């Protein structure tokens, strides 16, 4: 044990094994309650998906109802084109998230390492895009897509997802690049690398956490997107993404709640897996442009 740790810690919010047992129990208790609050609504969706028939409302509070059945899952997996919806969403989401990261990574590099004319205007503009209410751009984008013949195909949608994710990604990535000393790239250039090679071989590998976060954010945004997909794709059976597909289970007044919930649970799984894998990166990569090295 190092000398530093010989002083017992008194602060409630700090440090580890020296916490008194009482305090430790209290901390665990608070965290357990938080976990319950976090997970409870999700369990309620699970409960609806397991109920037989089509009942959203029930006086029954059990998470696993006594007459639980996997019928809703069977219907949605084997009788509805749910898997193609998920496949379509995956194809769109992964490709747009990747392209979005590439476009943002290069743009952020320019913002981080050069003081070109128009730079501050550009940065303020990126920030300003985050303030635009989404419904404001719907009509013009739809008309633009119609004029370019991009309705009813993935073309317009993929391009739109790539582009709309750029401002936030640039924000995260530029902030992260700023924390990496320029000296490293300069050293590489002395070794004979070009500027671009230095970027690709030195800066990018060091920025893995931020790149992972950016990918995750882009993935989430495209995976859950509904409004734009609705106007751009209409409802061509073979092209539907999962949010559009699940929407089809809702009629004007009636909804197939069991299948809807089963579908919801199933689409949450990929995202949750992604989150669990990246939760380490999440914390180190989200510097939000503030922390300076």
């Amino acid at each position: 044990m190092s000398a530093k740790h010989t002083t017992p810690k008194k602060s409630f919010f700090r440090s580890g094994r020296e916490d008194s047992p009482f305090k430790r129990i209290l901390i665990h208790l608070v965290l357990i309650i938080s976990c319950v609050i976090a997970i409870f609504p999700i369990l309620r969706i699970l409960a609806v998906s397991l109920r037989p028939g089509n009942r959203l409302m029930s006086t029954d509070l059990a998470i696993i109802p006594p007459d639980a059945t996997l019928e809703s899952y069977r219907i949605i997996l084997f009788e509805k084109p749910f898997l193609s919806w998920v496949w379509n969403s995956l194809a769109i989401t992964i490709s747009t998230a990747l392209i979005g990261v590439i476009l943002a990574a290069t743009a952020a590099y320019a913002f981080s390492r050069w003081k070109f004319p128009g730079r501050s205007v550009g940065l303020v503009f990126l920030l300003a895009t985050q303030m635009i209410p989404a419904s404001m751009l719907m009509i013009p984008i739809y008309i633009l897509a119609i004029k370019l013949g991009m309705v009813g195909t993935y073309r317009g949608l993929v391009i739109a997802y790539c582009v709309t994710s750029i401002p936030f990604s640039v924000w995260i990535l530029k902030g992260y690049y700023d924390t990496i000393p320029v000296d490293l790239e300069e050293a590489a250039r002395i070794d004979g690398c070009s500027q671009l090679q230095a970027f690709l071989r030195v800066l990018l590998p060091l920025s893995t956490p931020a790149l992972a976060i950016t990918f995750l954010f882009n993935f989430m945004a495209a995976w859950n997107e509904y409004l734009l997909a609705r106007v751009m794709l209409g409802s061509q059976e073979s092209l539907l993404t999962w949010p559009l597909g699940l929407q089809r289970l809702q009629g004007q007044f009636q909804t197939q709640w069991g299948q809807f919930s089963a579908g919801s649970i199933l689409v949450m799984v990929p995202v949750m897996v992604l989150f669990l894998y990246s939760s380490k990166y999440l914390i180190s990569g989200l510097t939000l442009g503030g922390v300076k090295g």
Partner: protein
Amino acid sequence: MITSEVILKSLGEVGTTVLLILIGTVLVEALLYLILMKWLKYKYALPFMLLAPAAIGLIALVIYPLIWELRLSFTNMSLKAFRDPAFIGIKNYVRVFTEPVLKQKMFFPLLGQTILWTVINITFHVGGGLGLAMLLNRKMRGKGIYRAIIILPWAVPQVIAVLAWRGEFNFAYGYFNIILTKLGLPGVQWLADPVANFAAMCMTNIWLGIPFMMVTLLGGLQSISSEFYEAAEMDGANAWQQFRNITLPLIQPVLTPAILLGTFWTFNNFNVPFFINQNELESSDILVTGLFRAAFQYNRYGFSAAFAFVIFALLLLFTIFYMRYTRSLKGAYES
């Protein structure tokens, strides 16, 4: 069921689009290379080439629609003047402030509601997020599991989360009223009572927003060296003093942009207020849901475009003041 036909079709669609983007990018880059690099030998040729693809995309999908909306905001376009709307100058902008923007509510009361909604949410997001981050920022058993579970609400698609929460606010079948009646208290009309409905909206959004804050702030806390705290303890500082004098100032660079982003997202949050407010109570509307109603429910296109620019301008003003006041973004945006 999934057929190979669907698999191939969507792969083909996505693939050709990616190819299209690639070809476009190569063409643009080649053109810029020839003009900026070879011909003009411009000092900033490389950064401009790096920026070009993103910039072109943003011009097409953000700047162009904004200009389209700006033009629309000076016309009287609505269902009654649909095909050829007339230019009416700044009349729409005047009407935003002088006429009801919803059925009865005027602009400023609606702005007040929106600010209240934003302040309540951000306070709880930051308070809850910071509290949890501090509890988790220590060596302890099960830290990874707690962290993973607490992040989960972030992974739930917002629309699904909102529908699930709305069910819980049902008078007879919702969980909250079941608990209240078990405690012998009267049930709350979450969907009909203005105050209760507003509270319901806030509860839902707080649940959705805490994970992002927690993760961000945990990153900030972990970058604070423990030596600061040890030195403070040597000087006999208590927990509150340590929090006030070490944690807060050192987490500031992360906290400030996180609050700013959280403010934009909450201020512009559509799903939660729109779907939790099932009875169309005007007291539960915020500016962006009002904007949606004006544009899509009542088809007041010209008016709603002007309304949207007013909201946009408000946020821009807020950002300028906030950045001046905290100055911490200066480092990120002007250095």
